[in-house]
Every structure is written in C-alpha cells, then in structure tokens.
C-alpha cells in the first residue's frame, strides 16, 4: 500500500452565522494516492466544493476548519499561515475552477499569467519561463501557442479558456490538482475534449486529481475512486465501477437510479422524495434518514446514532445496514442500477 499523497482526517468545516453554527463539512476523511483520480460527487450543498477549498486553503471567511487534519505528503498543511500556504498553492497543489473567465485576470495576457506562476515557484529565467509557458499551451492543445500567448482571456472561447486554466494549474508541476466542476460550464462536445485532455495530462505528469463534480458521467469516465457526499458527510466511498454498478448506501442507490441513462428505457426514474436538509436542520442520526426507504429495516438506530463508514460490498458506506449486527440483511442489497 502506497503512502497517500493527500490525507484528510476528520475534517470539519463550520460557518458561524447569526442563526448559529453551521457545519458544512462534517467529519470527512479521505486519502488520495499518488497518480490517483478521486472523484467527489454530490448534490448542491453537499459540501464537496468546500472540502476542496479547505484542502487548498481557500475557505472564504467566516468559514473555518473547526477540527481535523489535512496532510500533504505527511506534512500538516491545514495550520499553515497564509504566507506559508501561498508557497504551496500552485507549487504543490494546483486548482482548476468551474468558470474559466473568473479564474483568469482579464487585464493581463495569458502569457503573463502563466509566466508569473512559473517565476514565482520555479527557479528559472524569464526567457525560460516564457518558453515553458509556450510548451504548456502547446501541450493543452492551443493552436499557434507562440502567438496566442500574447492574447487576453476574452479573446479565447470557453473551451480554450479552460485549457489555459489547466496549463496554469500545471505550470509549476504540482503533485495534486483540485478540479472543482472543471467542465460544468462547457458544452458536451467541449466537455469531452477537456476530460480527455485532463486524463492524458495527469497520466503523463503522474499528477493526482481531486475531481469535484455533480456529474456522475464525468466521474465514471475519469475517476479511479469516488466519494459520494451528502449533507456534509461522505455517504459512500469506493472504486468507481463498484459505486456505479453496485451502490450500497441507499442514497447512492437512489442517486444512480435518478440519473436518466441513454439507451435504457425506463418508464419512471427512481425518485428520492424530499430534498437534502438545510445545514441548520440536519436530522439526528444518519442525515439521510428522513428520505431513506430502508430505515425501517434497522429500527431506531438510524434516527439516533450517526453511522460511520463501514465495509459494504467492495465499497465503504456510512449506513447502519452494514454494521456487524445486521450484516445478514445485506443479502437483499440493491441490485446494480447501471449495469
């Protein structure tokens, strides 16, 4: 077993508000191995983006890491000062955000933005930095990179801009990239191009990726493992094929059934009634219990005691169905939804 590149232990992110303390990320633990792509999937408000933001040290105040540890290569990074963190950000952890227009400075040419990153983090001359910037733009598939380097962000299309952002994330050769909804703002044909590119580059550079998205299809195409988040907690985590074909947690089962799939004729989609609880009204016990169709099988435990991740099939699920006492129940586990 390799030592993980990134290890998150019991991360809890809270927001103090006038109406009280909101826990947006609640006791999340995960690891990413070198070269691995971990998908983090969930609906809006599940805490997936905040987990990414906490790892890269970009939580917006008043949000703060209440407890837990984040270790990069065995070194704690969650308690670094902003100055110290700035040396890591870009150098060791790169970031790709959803909207390429807001993550590029509209007043600077893209060449200047890329060389700035390179000069900040790597010990090279300005000429070498410029050459490296051109190489990077070539690598991400921008035609005529030596001319395009002097263009401004608004002169690029959405897909091309996202390529520039990827080259910017790779500029200082980080070992980990946090990609927060990198293809959500793009059309499907462009999304396919960007996913293919991201996969190829990460394989070539041996970069690990934490891919945050709400699109299960993108995860299926890209990730090695996937963590399904619900109401700030990890509901299920495991190898991507297992989670998609043999989901164990009732929420994952519902989620997979709710996604319409091409070439499959179903009269009705599986429906999870209700919606995700607000952060100020997370139910006691399992956060999913008011919407869960199987809580009757367990009894009162679901509404009183919060489940931690337990071994379930080939994945881990935070569900009392899989605790030791009721292990016999798992014979009627939900069948594969997507197979």
């Amino acid at each position, binding site marked *: 077993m390799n030592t993980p590149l990134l290890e998150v232990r019991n991360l809890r992110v809270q927001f103090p508000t006038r109406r009280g303390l909101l826990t947006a990320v609640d006791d999340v633990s995960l690891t990413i191995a070198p070269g691995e792509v971990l998908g983090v999937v969930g609906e809006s408000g599940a805490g997936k983006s905040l987990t990414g933001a906490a790892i890269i040290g970009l939580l917006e105040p008043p949000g703060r890491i209440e407890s837990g540890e984040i270790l990069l290569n065995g070194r704690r990074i969650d308690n670094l000062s902003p100055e110290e963190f700035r040396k890591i950000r870009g150098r060791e952890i790169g970031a790709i955000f959803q909207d390429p227009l807001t993550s590029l400075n509209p007043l600077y040419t893209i060449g200047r933005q890329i060389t700035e990153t390179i000069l900040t983090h790597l010990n090279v001359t300005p000429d070498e930095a410029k050459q490296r910037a051109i190489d990077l733009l070539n690598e991400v598939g921008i035609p005529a990179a030596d001319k395009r380097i002097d263009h401004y962000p608004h002169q690029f299309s959405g897909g091309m801009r996202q390529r520039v952002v990827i080259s910017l994330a790779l500029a200082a050769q980080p070992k980990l990239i946090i990609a927060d909804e990198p293809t959500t703002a793009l059309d499907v044909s462009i999304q396919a191009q960007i996913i293919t590119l991201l996969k190829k580059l990460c394989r070539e550079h041996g970069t690990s990726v934490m891919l945050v998205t709400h699109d299960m299809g993108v995860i299926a195409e890209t990730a090695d493992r996937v963590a399904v988040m619900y109401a700030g907690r990890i509901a299920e985590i495991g190898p991507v094929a297992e989670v998609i074909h043999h989901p164990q947690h009732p929420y994952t089962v519902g989620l997979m059934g709710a*996604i*319409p799939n091409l070439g499959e004729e179903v009269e009705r*989609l599986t429906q999870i009634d209700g919606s995700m609880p607000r952060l100020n009204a997370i139910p006691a016990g399992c956060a999913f219990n008011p919407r869960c169709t199987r809580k009757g099988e367990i009894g009162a435990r679901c509404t009183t005691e919060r489940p931690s991740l337990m071994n379930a099939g080939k994945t881990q699920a935070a569900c009392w169905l899989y605790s030791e006492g009721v292990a016999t129940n798992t014979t009627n586990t939900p069948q594969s939804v997507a197979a």
Partner: protein
Amino acid sequence: MKSSVLLEVRDVAREFDVSKPWLNRVIEGQPKSILKAVDGVSFTINRGETLSLVGESGCGKSTIARVVCGLYPPTRGAVIFDGVDIAKASVNEQQQLRKRFQMIFQDPYASLNPRWRVGKIIAEPLVSHGIMTDKAEIKKRVDQLLTQVGLSPQDQEKFPHEFSGGQRQRISIARALSSNPEFLVCDEPTSALDVSVQAQILNLMKDLQREFGLTYLFISHNLAVVSHISTRVGVMYLGRLVEMADTKTIFNRPLHPYTQMLLSAIPDLRMTGKQRTPVAGEVPNPLNPPSGCTFHPRCPYANDRCKLEAPKMMVANDGSMVSCHAVEEKRIPIKLVA
C-alpha cells in the same frame, strides 16, 4: 375531426440585430451585423407527444421556444397552432389561443415574482385570461393545482424564497397548468436542478402528461434527459435543424455526423469502455457562420460540396428527417450505438 398535428413550425427564422450603435458604425465604417439565431426551421408536433430539441449553447433551441410562445415574433415563417397562424390571427383569436399554451422556464429563481405569494402567482393566468373571477373559486383551483404538483394547499400563503429549487419548479408547473393548457413549452426545466430533484420533476411531468393529455415542446442540452422524456427528438446546430427522428431511432442509429458526435461525447455512465470519437473544434461564431453546411469545418466526412452548398432537409418514409450531403450520398458508415 381534429388533425393529429397540434403545432406546426414552418420555415421559421429569427434574426437579431447585434450591430454597434449608429454613430460607431458611421465612424468605423462598419455594416450592420445580423445574428441569425434560427434559420429556416420546420417541424410539427402531434397531439400528446413530447418533441425535444437538443443542441449545444447558441444553437437556437431557446429562441425557437420563445418564437413558438410568441415572446419573439419570427423574422420569417409561421407558427401554426391547431390550424391557426398565430401571427395572422386577430387579437381576439390570439387571446383565445394564448390560454391553450403555457411555458415553463429554466431558472425557477428568476421566473417567480419574489414579492407575490405563491397563490397569486399560480392564479395569475386565471385572472389575466378572465377564466375565473370568483375568489373562492380561484382559491379552490389553486388548492387543486398545488396538490397535483405535489405541494400542499397551505403553501399558497408563502413566498417563493421559502421554497427549494425543485419546489419552485413545481410552482412554475402549477402556474402553467392553471389555465388548462393543451401545450407546454419547457425551456430547460430541469437544468438548474440536482439529479435527484430532476428525477422528481421529470416523473411529475410524465404523470401530468398522461393525466391531462398534454403536448410538450421540451428544450434541453442534456441528451440523457431527452432520451428519457421524448417521443421524438430534433437536433439543432447553429440555428438549423440537422436531424429529427423518433427517440429510439435517433439514439440507436444516428445519421447526421453531428448527432453521432454529440452521442459519443456524453460521458458513459455504464462504463462499457467504448471508444469515443473525439471531435475537434468548437461551435463557430454564429455572426459569421461557415459557408455551405455549417458543420463542415468539424465534420470528418466533409467534401467540397459540403463547403459550398447548404444541404436540404430530406424526409424519409417514417417521417425522420436529416440534412446532410454525406448521408444523401451514402458516404457515412451507419453507426449503431448501444
């Protein structure tokens, strides 16, 4: 006897003037620039079916929806609803027609008046069309509508901000249903919603269609959603319809190279490991569309004819339509998907 066609869109075009202001044009010596958002689109929708239009951003699918609803007058062509040309109908006739179709918009946060209570929002079509005047009667109808869309009658005293995105979309649907329409135009009704909520709304729409015999024009960029809900599907590219066929045919045996590309670009949830055919390039600027077939710069089968001559729509016996020289000349190997 009523004909089976409820709505006919005949050679509709819609242009937008996106020129700079007059003074700039004079000083810079630039001509007017006209954006052809929709350029010669024709199709029909039968009673009780769901016709979907799909395409990438800027292909003109939402413009069609708005032209059909009368929110934009077409620059050319006609929209014929139940045998009546909407543009030529008298004001009186138009008002009668308006009751019979309604629209559901994409963003449930923007399409509900934040200062009105839900009851008033839902009752608005009833009042403005003069269908009901009696307050008690209106309240009864609103109660019934809220129940139909899965909300509670007590909710009519609340304001829109008290609801989640999915619940707001239910309110939009209740409002659209209030005047007992036959035809609903749904412009990306689920794209602002999470998947589990999207499933709720899609199921609700299917249930209502069965119950009231509704006809839908469904606009979406999400092919999986479209394959789930539609009877027939039309694929648009740069303001033109490139292919239209019933759902099964278009997803199993796409003819047009653009449809083939779109289908292979969707991330494969079943992880069958099928090879994608990555398509290079992006949608061109609609202000300056390519000559001939507008897809030719990205098309792997393009030849000289495609660059010069715009393909005509070919209609097959089963009613499916495709507009492509390569298909006509049988230059494309037929791909079976799924």
